[in-house]
């Protein structure tokens, strides 16, 4: 079955420092062999702690950072490097992005109307049509056009600005919208409003979302499928409900058990995961999670576990789940204590 969006082997190493010959001294393996798929009209959530490569993945998809390798298939069209593929740049007509910082992502010297109309105008839409589109979109994101078209970003609140950013992203009629921590900077009540708005827009325009966040609750609330990233790699993916209810990877289990409990008696007394993520400049050998993994065995430090199909749409990269990997006896993961709630 062909997926609507399919990303395969996306990779980006950032060189750090160069020696006299112009060769990089070290590289940060920011995104390594990331593959995932998303279905039309659905939401794919991407979670992970900061520095795990979530945002880099988003920027690679938009070609804001040029990927070292990778292939993106959207609706049968293949984008990527190579002669028979379209350049990733062309995905920009079909994919748009909303950034976390609502203030920095709007030009302070342009009115709201000018900011939204910018995209259509560079795609050849006439000035008046672009302005009409801006008015229409403002209305759709819940901002009265007459009140807002001539305002400047600093005159708006964070939630209003993020609505403008959403309108701006929709202005060139994308099929996919990447929401890179789009609601993370908003307070909870505004967050809920914006999430509802996003759900409405998705239904109205038939959009597909890539929802990137560190907030597990929000991701569970909005996503159909979820992928979990750790140090630039996908460690687990699957349908949101089954992944949250029954995590297969020890890292996912640890993340979920780190969710604050709602009931006082369920409060945890110690951190589920010790230490910080290792430095991506020199990631650990084998499974990148093994130094922090309570279930690690010798094989985990030797071989990198491939992302393996568990059936029912679930994939995991863990030796414990792979037959014949050399792992002794799979142990049950500590079940997440708190049932995650909707925001």
């Amino acid at each position: 079955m062909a997926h609507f969006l399919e990303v395969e082997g996306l990779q980006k190493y950032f060189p750090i420092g160069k020696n006299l010959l112009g060769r990089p001294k070290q590289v940060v393996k920011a995104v390594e062999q990331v593959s995932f798929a998303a279905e039309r009209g659905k939401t794919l959530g991407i979670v992970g702690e900061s520095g795990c490569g979530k945002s880099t993945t988003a920027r690679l998809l938009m070609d804001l950072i040029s990927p070292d390798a990778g292939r993106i298939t959207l609706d049968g069209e293949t984008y990527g490097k190579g002669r028979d593929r379209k350049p990733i740049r062309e995905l920009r007509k079909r994919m748009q992005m909303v950034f976390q910082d609502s203030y920095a992502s709007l030009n302070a010297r342009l009115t709201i109307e000018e900011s939204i109309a910018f995209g259509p105008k560079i795609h050849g839409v006439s000035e008046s049509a672009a302005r009409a589109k801006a008015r229409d979109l403002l209305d759709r994101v819940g901002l009265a056009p007459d009140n807002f078209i001539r305002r400047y970003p600093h005159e708006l609140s964070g939630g209003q600005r993020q609505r403008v950013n959403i309108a701006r992203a929709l202005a060139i009629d994308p099929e996919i919208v990447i929401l890179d921590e789009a609601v993370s900077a908003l307070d909870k009540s505004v967050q809920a409003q914006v999430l509802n708005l996003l759900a409405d827009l998705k239904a109205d325009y038939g959009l597909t979302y890539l929802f990137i966040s560190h907030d597990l609750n929000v991701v569970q609330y909005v996503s159909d499928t979820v992928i979990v990233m750790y140090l630039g790699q996908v460690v687990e993916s699957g349908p949101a409900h089954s992944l949250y209810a029954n995590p297969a990877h020890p890292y996912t289990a640890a993340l979920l058990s780190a969710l604050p409990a709602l009931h006082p008696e369920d409060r945890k007394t110690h951190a589920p995961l010790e230490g910080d993520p290792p430095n991506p400049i020199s990631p650990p050998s084998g499974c990148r999670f093994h130094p922090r993994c309570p279930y690690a065995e010798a094989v985990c430090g030797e071989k990198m576990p491939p992302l393996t199909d568990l059936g029912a749409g679930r994939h995991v990269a863990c030796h414990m789940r792979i037959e014949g990997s050399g792992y002794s006896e799979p142990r049950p993961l500590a079940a997440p204590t708190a049932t995650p709630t909707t925001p």
Partner: protein
Amino acid sequence: MQNVKSPSPTPPKSADGGKLATQSRGYWATVWRSLRRDPLSIVCATVLVGLVLIAVFAPLLAPHSPAESTMVNRLLPIGSAGYILGTDELGRDMLTRLMYGGRMSLVMGILPVVIAFVIGTSLGLMAGFFGGWVNTVVMRTTDVFFAFPAVLLAIAISGALGPGLGNSMLALTLVFIPPIARVAESVTTRVRMLDFVDAARASGAHSVTIIRIHVVNNVMGTVFIYATSLVSVCMILAAGLSFLGLGVKPPTPEWGLMLNTLRQSIYVQPWVSVLPGLMIFITSLCFNLLSDGLRGAMDLKR
């Protein structure tokens, strides 16, 4: 000079939600409103406009001819009959010569900065936006100019090209391109990192369009403020070049040159001798204070 689009000409619709719409105004209107409330800036701007008007209309306003000299009336003190501000070492009316001198001094102070502003900002924008080897080439070249003190550089270029008005203006322009380019480069580098540039790029715009619509108007303000503060430096440098005989030639009235020739009479008529210097001082002070006021007014978030 500023590349900011004026808001759409349609008036705000007051019928529904006019309360919000009327509060919104263009960027420059906001700056002007804030500047208007700053008395110091208004005084400085008035003085500068006055000086420019006096310089432009000098032939109509001046009581004498700038070249008319009477050796009998040499070095009259301030307040002499017929010569309110006295006379210089050749018996020419000081008031007249100060008025005419303003023409040359203001042109030499402003024009090089304006040209350097255009060239320097373009270089800085390019270097800052494209980064990489473009940045290296442009910025390392400007660094070469930074190796010399501004005065020395102006004198060296002016001296090498030979004395003359055009050459000294050229020298001053070259002196001011590197600092303006450097400021423009650093602001551009900062702006380029902001998400709205990425958002514009993500919507499929080309670099030139992004620079034109999204970068220029965010860089221009800071560079503009910096350039206005350079006008005073430029006037002083221009006066210095004239003082050394590299700029304007006598008998053309120019403040720096007048200061030079009156220097020998400082023990005879100290107050008259000091007048051209006082004019340079007032003008450059006003430019500096005005640029300071602009800096405050252009800060949107205040």
